[in-house]
C-alpha cells in the first residue's frame, strides 16, 4: 500500500489550487449570482492543459492519469461548484467517450480540440421522459445512405450552449430480442437542425451551462457513430462509471471547502464570550465533517487509482459518487449551520456550496441509482 501522491500529482494539485484560488475564487459569487458561464476561465484552463489532463500527448492531452484529473476537479470544486461541474462534464462526458471508443479519425477531429483545451464538449443522454431510465431513450437515428438522420429532444445537458460537439444517444434499431439498440453519435453543434436553448433557472451550479436540445432532422455522416454500433448502451455505462469519479471528486472539493470555511469561521466567531469552536456541539460537527471528507477522499482516490490500473472500478466509482456527494451535502449544510444567520447570506458562500452540492446527488445518476448499481454489483 502507498497513500503518497507522486511528484507530478502533487505539482498538479498545487498548480490547480493556485489557479483556482487566484483566478476562479474571486469570481465565484458573481458566477453564481449572475448565472454567467465563465468562458474566459475555461480558455485559461485550456491553455494550461487542465482540460486535457487524462488524455495522452498524442491526442493533444497533458498525459496525466485519472487520479491527477480527480485532484484537479477537487481543487476547482473547492472554490466553485459551477466551474467544477462544467470542467468535469467536458472532460468525462464530452471528451472521454471519444478517447475510449472513437476511431483514430474521430480522435483527431473531435478529441484533439478538447484535449488541447480549445473546445468544450457535451454528452446528451437525458430526455424529458428518460432520466434515470436511460434505456427509455426516444431520440432516433435513422440510416439514410451514408448519413444518420437524428430526431428527438434532450434536456439538462451541461455545456451544450458552449460546446463544439455533443455526443447524442439515440435508438438506431432493434436487436434480435426486439429491444432497442441505443448508440452514441457525435454531433457537431453547428449542424443544421440542431437547436440549443439554455433558459433553466437553476437552484445551484448556476454558472454551469445547462441546456435543452432539439434535434430536427439533424444529418450527420455515419462515420460519426461512436464505437460499436451494437454496444452503445454498455459504452455509455462505462462512460458514466468514469464520470462518476469526477462528480465524486467535485463533491469532495465542495465538502473540503465547506469544512475549511466552517472551521475558520468557528474559530473567529465569538458568542457567550468564547469562540464557538470551543463549544462541544460545534466541535462534534467539525469532527464529523473532517472525518467524512477524509473518507470521501480515500474512496474517490481509490476509484481513480483502480481505473488507472485497469482494474474493475464500477462499484467503487458508485461508492465514491454516492458517498462523496452526500458528504458534500451534509458538510455544506453543517457549514451553513455553523455560520448561523451569516451562513444564510450569499456573501459567506456556504449557502452556495449547499445549493451546488444538491445537484451532485442528482446528476450523473441519482443517489438512488448509485445504490441500485451497488446492489447489482452485490448480486441482488
Amino acid at each position: 500500500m502507498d497513500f503518497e501522491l507522486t511528484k507530478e500529482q502533487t505539482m498538479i494539485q498545487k498548480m490547480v489550487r493556485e489557479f483556482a484560488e487566484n483566478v476562479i475564487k474571486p469570481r465565484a459569487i458573481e458566477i453564481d449570482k449572475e448565472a454567467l458561464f465563465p468562458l474566459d476561465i475555461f480558455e485559461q484552463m485550456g491553455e494550461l492543459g487542465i482540460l486535457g489532463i487524462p488524455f495522452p500527448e498524442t491526442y493533444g492531452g497533458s498525459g496525466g492519469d485519472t487520479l491527477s484529473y480527480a485532484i484537479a476537479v477537487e481543487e476547482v470544486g473547492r472554490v466553485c461548484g459551477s466551474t467544477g461541474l462544467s470542467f468535469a462534464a467536458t472532460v468525462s462526458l464530452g471528451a472521454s467517450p471519444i478517447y475510449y471508443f472513437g476511431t483514430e479519425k474521430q480522435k483527431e477531429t473531435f478529441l484533439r480540440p478538447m484535449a488541447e483545451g480549445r473546445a468544450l464538449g457535451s454528452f446528451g443522454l437525458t430526455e424529458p421522459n428518460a432520466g434515470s431510465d436511460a434505456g427509455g431513450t426516444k431520440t432516433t437515428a435513422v440510416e439514410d445512405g451514408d448519413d444518420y438522420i437524428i430526431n428527438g429532444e434532450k434536456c439538462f445537458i451541461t455545456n451544450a450552449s458552449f460546446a463544439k460537439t455533443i455526443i447524442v444517444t439515440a435508438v438506431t434499431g432493434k436487436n434480435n430480442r426486439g429491444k432497442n439498440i441505443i448508440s452514441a453519435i457525435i454531433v457537431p453543434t453547428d449542424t443544421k437542425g440542431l437547436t440549443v436553448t439554455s433558459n433553466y433557472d437553476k437552484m445551484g451550479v448556476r454558472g454551469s451551462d445547462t441546456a435543452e436540445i432539439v434535434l430536427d432532422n439533424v444529418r450527420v455522416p455515419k462515420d460519426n457513430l461512436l464505437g460499436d454500433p451494437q454496444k452503445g448502451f454498455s459504452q455509455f455505462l462505462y462512460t458514466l462509471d468514469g464520470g462518476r469519479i469526477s462528480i465524486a471528486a467535485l463533491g469532495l472539493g465542495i465538502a473540503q471547502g465547506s469544512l475549511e470555511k466552517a472551521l475558520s469561521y468557528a474559530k473567529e466567531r465569538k458568542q457567550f464570550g468564547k469562540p464557538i469552536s470551543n463549544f462541544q456541539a460545534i466541535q462534534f460537527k467539525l469532527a464529523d465533517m473532517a472525518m467524512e471528507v477524509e473518507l470521501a477522499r480515500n474512496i474517490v482516490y481509490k476509484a481513480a487509482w483502480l481505473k488507472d490500473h485497469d482494474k474493475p472500478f464500477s462499484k467503487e466509482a458508485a461508492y465514491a459518487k454516492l458517498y462523496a456527494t452526500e458528504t458534500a451535502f451534509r458538510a455544506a449544510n453543517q457549514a451553513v449551520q455553523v455560520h448561523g444567520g451569516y451562513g444564510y447570506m450569499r456573501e459567506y458562500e456556504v449557502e452556495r456550496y449547499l445549493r451546488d452540492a444538491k445537484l451532485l446527488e442528482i446528476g450523473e445518476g441519482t443517489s438512488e441509482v448509485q445504490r441500485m448499481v451497488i446492489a447489482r454489483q452485490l448480486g441482488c
Partner: protein
Amino acid sequence: MNIYVLLKRTFDTEEKIVVSDGRIEDESAEYIINPYDEYAVEEAIKQRDEHGGEVTVVTVGDEESEKQLRTALAMGADKAVLINTEDDVEDGDQYTTAKILESFFEDKEADLILAGNVAIDEASGQVGPRLAESLGINYVTTITALEIDGESANIDKDVEGDVEKIETALPVLVTCQQGLNEPRYPSLPGIMKAKKKPLEELEIDDLDLDEDDVEAKTETIDIFLPPEKEAGKVLEGEIDDQVKELISLLKNDAKVL
C-alpha cells in the same frame, strides 16, 4: 545563450513561523520556490525563448529541494542541478552558499545568471552579488526590466521606487525584483515533461570543496519573533480634541514629531 538561475527553497509565505528553543520549527511547514526566484525563472525562460540557448536552475539545498527544482522544470527550464549539502554543511550562511556556487560556476560558461532580489526567509540579498564578485563578472541588483542585444544588456533597476537605466556587457548576474514579470503557472504538459528532464545531484565533494572551505563566516546568536502588535487606540470626543490628543500622543508617546 547559457542561462542559469539561482533558486532557493523557502517557507511558504502563508506559513506561520513558530520559534522554539531558539530555532524555527520547520517540521510541518509548507515550502515554495522563493517568490523572487520565481521572477528569475520566468525571466530566464523568456530570454531563452527570445534568444535561444538553455536554462539551468541551480539550488544549494537538500533532497527536499528537488520539488522546487521540478516545479521550475515544469515552468519550462531545461535542466536542474541540486547541490545537496545535507550531510556536509550544518549551519551555512550566505558566504557558504556563494562559495559553493563559485566552485560550481568555475567551469561553466554562463552568459546570464539570474537570482532573486532577496530570499524571503533570511532576506540578506547577498548571494547573487557575492557570487558575481567572486566570478569577476558584472552584476545589477533589483532589476525590473531586461533587454539583451548581442553582448550588451539594457537593464531597468529599481532604486527605492525610481528607475535607473543601466547598460552593461554580458556575462552579467542580475537579481530580480517584483514587477519584472508575471511568473507563469507550470502548465500540465510542463509538469508531465518535468520528470523526464535532467536533474543532476552534486555534493560539495564533487566540487572539490570540504566542510572547512565553506564554513559560515557568521554566527546566529538568537532567533526571536517581533513583539506582538498591541491593540490600536480609538480616539473619542470632539474632532478638535481628537486632533489635539493625536498630536500630543505623536509628540510625547510615539516621539515621532
